[in-house]
């Protein structure tokens, strides 16, 4: 469903159509995606339009990238610390 929405907004029935499940079951999937903040829903006349909202995934990825950078810095510090320790410069 997310793959479909990445290509553009879809109505709930369009989203449910390719899957071998009831419309009711598809609605449950859509609820889960919506609760996780990954899609938005908007009423348009008699249909509900869904759109992909990538921000939560982007946020998590951004944080991991930052964490990765912090670990490299940590290893730099460790390297410096151990080198100093060996020279007897550190208590």
């Amino acid at each position, binding site marked *: 469903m997310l793959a479909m929405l990445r290509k553009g907004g879809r109505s709930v029935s369009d989203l449910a159509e390719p899957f071998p499940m009831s419309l009711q*079951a598809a609605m*449950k*999937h859509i609820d*889960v*995606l919506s*609760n*996780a*903040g*990954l899609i938005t829903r908007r009423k348009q006349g008699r249909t509900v339009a869904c759109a992909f909202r990538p*921000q*939560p*995934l*982007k*946020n*998590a*990825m*951004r*944080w*991991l990238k*930052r*964490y*990765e*950078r*912090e*670990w*490299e*810095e*940590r*290893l*730099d*510090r*460790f*390297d*410096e*610390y*151990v*080198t100093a*320790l*060996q020279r007897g410069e*550190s208590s």
Partner: protein
Amino acid sequence: MKTDGKDEVLTFQRVVDAPRPIVWQAWTDPKHAAKWWGPAGATVPVFEADLRTGGSFRIEIEHSGNTSRVEGIYEEIVEPERLVTSGSLTRNGTKLCDTRRIVTFEDDNGKTAIAVQQTFFNLAPEAGDMSGGTKAGMEEYFDRLEAHLRR
């Protein structure tokens, strides 16, 4: 990195010009670790560690106005070659994820090769957005999605 909701794994490697017993001590002894733990510019006001299998640890890191807390247990300690810990990471009071870290130390011609493998579980979608609330973690969300698919 994957975005399919499975566990995220980061790995780091470094060769340090010091023999393994010294590297092990500097890494595991709170007295030493508190002096280098955390990213550049960080301070470590709390580093409590009961260094034995099943023992717990609690570390607080102050960095760029943020307070991070890591709490967990030592799953496996094989001095001076292997250290496995698991715990959770909280920043400014918001839990970001659970983690498991495997650190191995190998002799390398008088130097020591360090390998860190860190796995993240239950990564919160708002992890990159510190002002975020407390939405369900990515893992929980995908678990629920999977459970729905199996119906």
